[in-house]
């Protein structure tokens, strides 16, 4: 690192950026999806509260369970549940993508664009399929 040291020796020292700054990149799909993986992970983290509430209510008795059913049946409850479904599927598919990348495969530009698009489209499609199956099993929206 002789040239760096020589450069540092003359003139006032200017702190160099340690890594490239986020702002100089143009947003790419892979980058947005990387952020989304973290956002969905954090959303699921707090979403586990609802799962725990649901389990505790089931264990507590019919009255407590009726409260959960009322919440899930409400508009806000449905939005939360739909969001949780999509976040879970998207995060799981994104996780599979990460695991593929961990094996050092799928890094070519075409591959990573494909993996990224596939997990985005796949997560939306799967979410709607799961909800369709759910409604079919319940005999239609109520």
């Amino acid at each position, binding site marked *: 690192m002789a040239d760096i040291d020589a450069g540092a020796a003359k003139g006032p020292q200017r702190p160099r950026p340690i890594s490239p700054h986020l702002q100089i990149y143009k947003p790419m799909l892979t980058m947005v999806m990387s952020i989304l993986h973290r956002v969905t992970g954090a959303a699921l983290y707090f979403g586990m509260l609802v799962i*725990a509430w649901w389990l505790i209510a089931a264990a507590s008795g019919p009255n407590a369970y009726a409260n959960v059913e009322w919440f899930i049946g409400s508009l806000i409850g449905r939005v939360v549940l739909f969001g949780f479904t999509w976040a879970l599927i998207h995060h799981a598919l994104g996780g599979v993508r990460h695991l593929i990348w961990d094996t050092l495969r799928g890094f070519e530009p075409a591959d990573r664009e494909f993996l990224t698009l596939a997990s985005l489209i796949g997560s939306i499609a799967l979410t709607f399929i799961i909800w369709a199956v759910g409604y079919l099993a319940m005999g239609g929206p109520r």
Partner: protein
Amino acid sequence: MSGKHTNEMRTPMRRVRGLGAAHTGTGHFWHQRVTSVAGIPLTIAFVAIIVALLGRSHAAVVQILGSPIVAIIMLLFIINTVYHMWIGMQEIVLDYVHEDKLKLVTLMANTFFCFAIGLASVFAILKLSFGV
């Protein structure tokens, strides 16, 4: 690598120990992968169980959730997920919280939250399985 490299942020002792910001090394990185792989089949099973239970009466839900196979799958899902999200949130905290005291408090809150969610859920599933 020369010791006086100006871009090196870690002290030589930190580098030798190699334990990172949480002082626990690469163990969590590996556990994050293990819980991710386990999470794939467990998540599929979990979604299937939820879809099958929606809209059923309380009595039916209790019976299904309390049956051994369903209860065991739910227990595996909860334990795996709670550990996975504990590591994941720790990673997020370490990325954004740099002030020592706040970092300590946030990491502690993460542990409390995950423990509470995990224990409450496991207790509920066991109660559903073993009755009153």
